[in-house]
């Protein structure tokens, strides 16, 4: 039994230490966003954020996650209160089948947390580990740029709220 912190909540996990994080997220914690694509770290559809860094959950065993903070797409926002990255993907209609998208969004989120104003080249380079088969790439790029702008606005508005008398 091990404690795993996911989206700010501690979960008691009864799984072998070699179990990849992906299966724990989907099977034990019943989360949907991280997807099984290859199990080999080749496609990116399982990507989540661990302590601020994008991680391929299909090849990351549970034993490496003791004391770490795992964030999945579900932890960023909800249908009712979507996070900027989620709003951006909706507004750009940046999906066809959408199976790869959750992983793409998590790596983009990690990038934007580190570098709020990435260049187009930096976004392309960051998303290199990710495959999309529907060919939605142009929209995904636009959505990441839009998320960058939305986060800027969100920061500005929350800052102005804080500073309001």
């Amino acid at each position: 039994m091990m404690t795993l912190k996911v989206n700010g909540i501690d979960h008691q996990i009864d799984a072998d230490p070699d179990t990849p994080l992906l299966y724990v997220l989907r099977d034990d914690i019943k989360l949907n966003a991280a997807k099984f694509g290859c199990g080999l770290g080749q496609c990116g559809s399982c990507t989540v954020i661990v302590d601020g860094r994008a991680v391929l959950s299909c090849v990351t065993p549970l034993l490496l996650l003791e004391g770490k903070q795992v964030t999945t797409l579900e932890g960023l926002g909800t249908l009712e209160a979507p996070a900027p990255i989620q709003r951006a993907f909706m507004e750009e209609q940046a999906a066809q089948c959408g199976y790869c998208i959750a992983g793409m969004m998590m790596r983009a989120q990690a990038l934007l947390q580190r570098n709020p104003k990435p260049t187009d080249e930096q976004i392309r380079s960051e998303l290199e580990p990710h495959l999309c088969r529907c060919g939605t790439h142009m929209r995904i790029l636009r959505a990441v740029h839009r998320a960058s702008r939305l986060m800027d606005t969100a920061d500005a508005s929350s800052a102005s709220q804080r500073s309001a008398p």
Partner: protein
Amino acid sequence: MNERIKASVILDRRRVLAGGGALIVSFSLTDALAQDQTAPAAAPAQNPPGSLKGAPFLDSWIRIDADGSITAFTGKAELGQGFKTAFQQIAAEELDVPFESLKVVTADTRLTANEGYTSGSHSMQDSGTAIQNAAAQVRELLVAEAARRLDLPAENFRTENGAVISSDGRRFAYGDLVAAGMLHVQAQPKSKLKDPATFKVMGLPIPRVDIPAKVTGGVAYVQDMRLPGMVHARIVRPPSYGAQLTDCDTSAIEKLPGVVKVIRDGNFLAIVAAKEFLAVKAMKALSAAATWKETAGLPKQDDLLHVLTSLPSQDSTIFQQNNPSAVGQKTIEATYVRPYQAHGSIGPSCAVAQWVDGAMTVWTHTQGVYPDRQGIAEMLRVPPASVRCIHVEGSGCYGHNGADDAAADAALIARALPGTPVRVQWMREQEHSWEPFGPAMVTKLKASLDDNGAIADWNFEVWSNTHSMRPGGAGSMLAAQHMSQPFAVPAPKPLPLPEGGGDRNAIPIYTFPNAHVVHHFIPAMPLRISAMRALGAYHNVFSIESFMDELAGAAGADPVEFRLRHLDDPRGREVIEKAAQGFGWLKGQQAPQDRGFGFAFARYKNLAAYCAIATEVEVNRETGRPRLVRAVAAVDSGQVVNPDGLINQIEGAIVQSMSWTLYESVTFDDTRITSIDWQTYPILRFNSVPESIEVHIINRPGKPFLGSGETGQGPAAASIANAIADATGKRLRDLPLTRKRIKEAIDA
């Protein structure tokens, strides 16, 4: 269906209808036979449009409940193309209700009409047309009912926002007008469709209804289903086609933690475990314990030209045109080859099945719930009525991938565990090595130019397998093929023209005085193959449109002008002109250093959407690496329902076709498929995504919907090939146009 059965179904429905407050009942209340409305008992003299032909009752498409809630039904499956949203727009428009006020139910053998497969860019033209006409006729019936109640002529009424309103302002909500059986009537051949100028919902870029759940971690895919008590299964597939399981000691595996059951039925081997990763671990142990006898039977991967043209073929002339007065002076020939290519879904195929009291329910991302039901029923040796297939979205498939096989796997395993829901997902290497590939093809072209630089004669020959081995029968599904009492793979058949399979788009859309087109249909299938987006049109359009550029070069003509010189179809001409204009195509243009411009055009199947694509490609002369810099497309798909959805489809087609065209071929040795993951079957990554893609739509208000999901595949391939030829001065004719081949051509 015979008259007697049809009559009993109708009677049964009327009885049910009489007891309920709903205007109609959904199919869930009736016998599954009711879905198979292939031959209406009293067919109208003239066929109604779209899929209403096969399912003529209005209540197969539109349901209005007494509380005013509205449902539109489609037998097609949402595969990520976004048509669920488009159908909701169509139904809302013709019913005159707000977009948000209705929902769409997709393919389910208990709820929706049998519309066969969701394939061939048919969804809008078949199902969209049916929903549009059914909705319009339902609206007329509601108006007639209001008119009857007030004893006024129907002309005195209008509809608005889900209500019929009389000229003096009296208002009837649709829910209040509903009466038992009112919509259980057969569609009329003609409908009073709305004037496109008055559209409020159709034609708008309404956001897709499925995207919010997909970007917030909602339950969106069959992979996300979790039924109470559900267990996880994994398959151990044979290592190669035809391999026989000779030995497998399962005793140790049955004792592994969490293992519920090991299933062996002939060459079908599977394990079931309580948790998913335990199933994966046990699968690996089971795979190690299994011994297979393999047979070397695969052809030479490097010599597909001779492999295909040497296999026995059934040859037919599919087009012949003679005009002896046109005589060619200058003749050129070319041969083009396409390898086997993979659908390569990002999510391996998955299904959930449950066997309860002799009835099987399968949740599947199949493209055809009814054909799957038939195949699974045959495999389980139960009547089709005992099987229900429900479509749930999966990862994008782009044709016949492992979806149907996974559905059969789940059903076969679930039958061994009565009552327990079983979820099966394939592993990456299983999807890559067992999916039915897009078939390899060869085309040989020969044409002559007359003194004026016009094409005087045109000869086109194509060698190909069929392009559909989809289920219907059990023999198309791997589980049924591998059982101890196996079902034989059905004999392949060429798909009939005008749509065709290997010969799809083999007949030129251009006007040539003399033309001869031959289809060499190859029955033998050395590799497992089936339908992949655009079927033969991908390679045939690649060939025709590459060759048109070769001929334009020989004639000293501009490629765009040369195409227009041979094209009469005014809509086609307009699409070509639009793409050329959007790109900034100029006669006599010169691309920048190491870059080339390319152009290509086709009308998908010569009867669906028109698409022209201009591209700019950069070639690194040192490495041979090609890079698509930008693409500009123009498309005419008739009346546009959702312009952003259409643009998304064309953008995706260009990017996906670019990946097929530049990088992709299935690899194999004499026994096994060796392209088994993304390392061994590389596809496009972000470093090769173009700088921009522009899509220009030519809307045709009031014209029929023309399928557009596949129209971009061929033109994108040829446009890129033409741009590479423009950049390098070298013509590449063997797909894929890899950097190695380009480098070799440059150095030659």
